[in-house]
């Protein structure tokens, strides 16, 4: 029994008003589906049913793409950049004004701790809209030549790990550049996207500029393969990314993909250990490890491995797992039964492969989908748990002896999204950064995101960048 026990500190749910059923947001209105059916969405922490949403059918997709096309031709492409910017500023402001409601809704629908959705997700959402609002009337200065043009209608499919943030990463630059969008949120996390539809209405956004279609894989496929879209943007698994790349082959559709990762977090012997431990914890346990750029492979220099692991294990005992709406929760629920099964399976594989498994003592709630933070030591490159993306709070620990070996092991993967480097030596940071085949390198920090900072992968982690000036390119005809 700890001396200092934190009492429950629940964030109130009363600020959120979830309707029993939702339609589709098409042409500026919530409409009933034509050929879509309804399915339930649950709270992963309690398994309670939250609402019923639509799995949009092919005719619904048609309707949405048509609405986006009309809006593009009739309204949005005729507006000045200045005016597009003003709409985006309105959206940003409304997100800020409704931030608590959105944070609570996100935690309920996704399972992530309220502290994360409140302090990380939602503020970044607003910041993304503000940042791109400012570009809308400055595209001449963006380095793509004078008067760059939009592409037209963008089909955007996003994942369940950062639902509203991924929506912002997609919609903000698309609109700033003059495109209209049809966006499909993930099957298990539709609610904040539907709240965003309400925000679009509050902002008086011209009808059809943003359209939201809920649904699962079939809806996404129909949307992406629709002949009426000019651009496809996808964040999700590498497997689906591959399918999309195949499906757009031979068309004129422009594509950006942000896919999976198996990032190496490299800790050298001169790294400040307490800081490195924070970085490791943040790297793989933030957001329950449901992060494409998660530092899921710890590459620690052999000479400090024991000391680091001892400190890491001690640090993990202070992580608090539980009710996502409790303000003191560090680790929330796994997003779905399906994802939990996958994490369990790969963890069993890890044990079978001969790695040693450890978790801090952790009380798991009775209902809901939960997995304790888990560390595998004695892992080799050839183990499945070192190669496959688990997408859960599972860390695989490997060792290395020299910087060259660290680089080799870090790069020895078909993925290339991100990497971490921990050392006090500046020149070594830059040497590593030059050699790591990853789209984002974090040095002495991890999981930092900013609307001004371009994010995206090498190799099978996808192509294209989101954020920053570079993030405009994917939505312009350049």
């Amino acid at each position, binding site marked *: 029994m700890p001396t200092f026990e*934190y009492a429950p500190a629940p964030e109130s749910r009363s600020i959120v008003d979830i309707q029993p059923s939702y339609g589709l947001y098409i042409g500026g209105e919530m409409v009933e589906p034509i050929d879509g059916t309804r399915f339930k969405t649950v709270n992963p922490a309690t398994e309670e049913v939250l609402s019923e949403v639509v799995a949009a059918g092919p005719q619904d997709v048609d309707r949405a793409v048509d609405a986006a096309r009309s809006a593009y031709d009739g309204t949005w492409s005729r507006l000045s950049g200045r005016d597009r910017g003003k709409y985006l500023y309105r959206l940003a402001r409304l997100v800020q004004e409704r931030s608590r409601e959105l944070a609570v809704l996100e935690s309920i629908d996704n399972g992530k701790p309220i502290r994360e959705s409140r302090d990380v997700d939602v503020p970044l959402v607003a910041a993304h809209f503000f940042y791109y609002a400012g570009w809308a009337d400055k595209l001449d200065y963006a380095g793509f030549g004078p008067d760059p043009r939009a592409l037209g209608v963008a089909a955007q499919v996003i994942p369940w790990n950062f639902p509203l943030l991924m929506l912002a990463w997609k919609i903000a630059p698309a609109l700033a550049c003059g495109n209209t969008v049809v966006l499909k949120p993930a099957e298990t996390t539709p609610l904040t996207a539907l709240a965003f539809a309400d925000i679009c209405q509050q902002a008086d956004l011209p009808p059809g500029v943003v359209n939201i279609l809920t649904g699962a894989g079939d809806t996404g496929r129909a949307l992406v393969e629709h002949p009426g879209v000019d651009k496809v943007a996808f964040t999700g698994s590498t497997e689906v990314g591959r399918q999309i790349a195949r499906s757009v082959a031979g068309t004129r559709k422009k594509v950006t993909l942000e896919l999976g990762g198996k990032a190496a977090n490299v800790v050298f012997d001169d790294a400040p250990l307490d800081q490195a431990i924070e970085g490791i914890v943040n790297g793989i346990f933030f957001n329950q490890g449901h992060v494409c750029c998660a530092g899921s492979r710890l590459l620690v220099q052999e000479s400090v491995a024991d000391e680091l692991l001892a400190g890491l294990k001690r640090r993990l005992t202070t992580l608090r797992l539980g009710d996502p709406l409790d*303000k003191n929760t560090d680790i929330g629920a796994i997003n779905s039964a399906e994802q939990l099964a996958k994490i369990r399976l790969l963890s069993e594989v890890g044990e079978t492969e001969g790695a040693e498994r450890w978790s801090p003592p952790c009380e798991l709630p009775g209902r809901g989908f939960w997995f304790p933070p888990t560390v595998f030591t004695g892992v080799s490159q050839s183990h499945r748990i070192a190669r496959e993306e688990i997408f859960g709070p599972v860390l695989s620990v490997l060792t290395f002896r020299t910087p060259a070996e660290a680089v080799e092991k870090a790069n020895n993967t078909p993925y290339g999204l991100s990497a971490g480097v921990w050392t006090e030596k500046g020149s070594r940071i830059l040497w590593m950064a030059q050699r790591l085949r990853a789209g984002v390198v974090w040095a002495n920090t991890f999981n930092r995101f900013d609307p001004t900072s371009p994010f995206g992968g090498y190799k099978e982690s996808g192509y294209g960048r989101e954020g920053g000036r570079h993030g405009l390119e994917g939505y312009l005809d350049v």
Partner: protein
Amino acid sequence: MGVEARAAALATRSIKTTAKAFALDLAIRMVDLTTLEGQDTPGKVRALCAKGLRPDPTDPSCPAVAAICLYGDLVPTAVEALEGSGVHIAAVATAFPSGRAPLDVKLADTKAAVAAGADEIDMVIDRGAFLAGRYLDVYDEIVATKQASGDAHLKVILETGELATYDNVRRASWLAMLAGGDFIKTSTGKVSPAATLPVTLVMLEAVRDFRDQTGRQVGVKAAGGIRAAKDAVRYLVVVNEVAGDDWLSPDWFRFGASSLLNDLLMQRQKLTTGHYAGPDYFTLD
């Protein structure tokens, strides 16, 4: 993941209801109630001692503070006022706050306070020597002061505001512990910035690592600039999650403060009565 980021993250912990009540009481018991002014008189010291013994005159369940902290020449007054109470008497010594005096003067200062009845000594390190790189001189002075303190517990004030970097704070912490200090203390309270969450976090990491390596436990005192109960609770969260359970007692963690006590009392009263309190309902000293 820097120190400041970790401290900021820990500061978002929400401590409510029973946890808050526990934390407030613990914080009160950890206060070294302090007066360190040129204008201190025996009258002022007597009033402060009375306050330290019974912080809330309307509520006898309110615990007493850990110690009274004052200049060495006023120790006799405190000894008389606190006799038999269990509240410690911490005297600042070694040419507090600057530490700029010959060593024999600083040691005489220490011995006099102990002879007068102080059972804790708060010394200052020679920051000039530290910043000039004369670490051995700093070390030797602490060893000598520990000897001059006899049975009294020695707290070593690092004056973190003058040390400026976290690396220096960590280095000075280790120096003080290796030299035999019983507590490491952030500040004199006469220099800004005084105690901060990040600096205290660094010091808590140091005492934790020191015990891992040597088996000896050293305490931490955060002094200066902590005025709000909310901040005090944040410090306790940091102690809890960085150093752990073993440091959550007045034997191993202290707050050097004066006005903090009344804010702790106000928050404590709000928990029992359910409404916000006002300063008129608490004694100034």
